[in-house]
């Protein structure tokens, strides 16, 4: 006998699932390591999630228009390299380079729409371009992030650790941008029914370019925050972000097609993915197994979501 839920209850369940997963992981971490339950402990625990949150928001923008971005990891790496090499010595050049990178993203969006290319192919190709630029800029790991960036990331925020503040801020900003604003509504409409949006007289090329540009800006923020934490960079520093950001966004309730995304969900997803890794470290699981275990956690959560979807369809 399957319990009967109303559509409202199921929607709430859907929204709560990522939060539930996060709480469960957090509780498990505290159980293994009670000392983590402090200002300093939480700061250490969640710090790694900060750049990933922004990378996930970037991925979410792309998912909102039913595309997929396979270049975000190498893009964040490139930004980190720019932050560690150009930003301290030639700030003006660094800003120009970052602006050009964002313009590159926008161009990719325009090309994908205008030529009707699959986003996976274009962004996969683009990922090698970003990687190449990063290697040219920083052939061996090194560089030094500007002091103001490092200081900002080490700031002792009042009341709650900085990552929690940033998470709340990001979730609110993202929610306003994609769910509440008139622009975000149009973007989600484009993800679900591009023909309807075109018929209403919008330029899809401009829209998609705009969406990709915003994703690029989120990517720039992610890269700068990352290099502020690590103080130095290398050309592969964030390459794992590509897949982790997709997983985090999906974990947070986004769908691959149909313009269904959630910014708070994406932030929670990014936190969950980071915590899952830390939790496994606390369990003294050999690093070789950690990636597999992380995948297992992901499968369990996504399996639960699929189960809720099944209930919804009845």
């Amino acid at each position, binding site marked *: 006998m399957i319990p009967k839920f109303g559509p409202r209850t199921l929607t709430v369940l859907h929204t709560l699932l990522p939060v539930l997963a996060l709480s469960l992981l957090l509780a498990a971490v505290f159980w293994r390591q009670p000392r983590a339950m402090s200002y300093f402990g939480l700061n250490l625990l969640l710090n790694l999630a900060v750049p990933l949150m922004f990378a996930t928001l970037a991925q979410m923008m792309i998912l909102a228009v039913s595309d997929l971005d396979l270049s975000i990891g190498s893009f964040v790496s490139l930004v980190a390299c720019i932050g560690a090499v150009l930003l301290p010595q030639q700030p003006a050049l660094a800003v120009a380079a970052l602006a050009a990178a964002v313009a590159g993203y926008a161009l990719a969006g325009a090309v994908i729409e205008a030529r009707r290319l699959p986003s996976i192919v274009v962004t996969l190709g683009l990922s090698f371009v970003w990687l190449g630029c990063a290697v040219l800029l920083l052939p061996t790991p090194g560089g030094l992030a500007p002091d103001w960036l490092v200081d900002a990331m080490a700031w002792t925020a009042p009341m709650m650790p900085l990552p929690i503040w940033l998470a709340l801020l990001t979730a609110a900003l993202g929610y306003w941008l994609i769910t509440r604003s008139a622009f975000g*509504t149009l973007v*989600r409409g484009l993800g679900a*029914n591009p023909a*309807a*949006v075109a018929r209403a*007289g919008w330029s899809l090329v401009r829209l998609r370019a705009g969406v990709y540009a915003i994703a690029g800006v989120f990517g720039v923020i992610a890269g700068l925050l990352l290099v502020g934490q690590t103080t130095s960079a290398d050309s592969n520093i964030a390459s794992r972000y590509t897949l982790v950001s997709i997983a985090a966004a999906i974990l947070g309730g986004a769908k691959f097609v*149909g313009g*269904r995304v959630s910014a708070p969900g994406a932030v929670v997803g990014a936190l969950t993915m980071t915590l899952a890794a830390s939790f496994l470290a606390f369990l003294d699981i050999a690093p070789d197994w950690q990636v597999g275990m992380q995948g297992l956690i992901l499968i369990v959560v996504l399996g639960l979501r699929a189960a809720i979807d099944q209930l919804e369809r009845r």
Partner: protein
Amino acid sequence: MTSTTNPEALLHTRDCAKSFGAVQALRGVDLALQRGECIGLVGHNGAGKSTLMNLLSGNLQPDRGEFSFAGQPPSTGWDVRESQHMGIRCVYQELSLCPNLTLAENMRITQPELCGWAWRQRASAQLMASLDLIFPGHGLRPDQVVGELGIGRRQMVEIARAFTPGRQALELMILDEPTSSLDNHAAAQLLDYIRQFVAQGKSCILISHKLGEILQVSDRIVVMRDGQVVETVATAQSSRDQLVAAMGQDEAPVDGSAPRTAQQAQSRPTVLALRAGPAAVLHAAAGEIIGLAGLAGHGQTELLLRLHAAAAGHSDPDIDIDAATAFVAGDRQTDGVFGLWSIARNMSVGWLDGLRRRGLLDLQQERTQAEHWRARLGLVTPDLDLSIYSLSGGNQQKVLFARALGSSAPVILMDDPMRGVDVGTKHDVYGLIAEEARGGRTFIWYTTEFDELHHCDRVFVFHNGAVVGELARAELSEERVLNLSFEERAA
């Protein structure tokens, strides 16, 4: 119901033409529309109604011809925004709502001026006012997500959204099959509202296959056929039969190749049957060519897919079939060709079972068989290893026929396969079908072209997903098919 109260012309088109590749969708249309008038636009599938609508709404640009709206030609390039500024709104047949958005959010898609502070509240208020006006008692809320609504409710939202004024006052409303998913009650509400709307001096173009509605609500009726306006008549002086006759073609029927006697086919065993309850409503014998007719989208393609699935082993309580089937797709680009494969590979993918030898493909035999079909179909290509896209559309379709006919399947299902195919290819293929049928193969042939039905032994007419009539070859006439297609029960 006269249009003389306000003689000022709102819309005037002259010699508007539009073609897509070799297909002439519009061959020069002259149309005049007065303020405060409702025009009913009728015609068979492919008559050009939707193309005309897309020209007026700015989604397409005409190849030639001119038009004026409210007494002046469009200022700059004619596009959607320009047409919206002029006060033209459209309700499209295939709905243009975004299922992931709420009702209020969907307003934002069509109204660019909805932005800034509290746009959601303004959108909700506008949409609800419009819904209350057209469909009193609709029971919809602005925060409902469209995906959770049934198709009928969605259509109500789509219509109400189009009737919201936005920045520019509404002048002309174009409705394409607006009642196709509405129940009788909501449809009546809409038709009432259309009369109110035109009584306020606005204009309306109503496109519908339901002739009863057209006769009930319009002032004038425009009949289109083959991309042209063939008749314009005041509704008061028109009748259903007259419209049906005007929509049809008067040409003499083409004689099907090689006449076959009915007994010849009937003495053969039945290979498939579709039942509705205990009775068989559609059956086919070995060697028969069965035509599926009726308006597009009334269940013909669905039946073909069901037959195909049943033959592949998915049990279907209404279908008896014990023979393998092969499918000839009509929509080449989506369902037909493998774009990255060669011509030969595109053929042989349908024959793989026959080509298997010890688990591997017999490449020698594949080549021989492909060459055989190339000769038999008269395929115009220097080399079978070239990309499928090196062929013209008609020749690509021949490849799809070779794929199906080269298999061992005794039943061939054809989903309007001659779409956009040139006359020469058609005649080649008609001959091939007749030849294969004489050899004992059964063809189930859905077609939107009436002339092709003359090649069939028997024709079944579809309406709303059900078979509404069976015609033998001798009884076949376009008027009878149209009459059955436009069957309206208890309107």
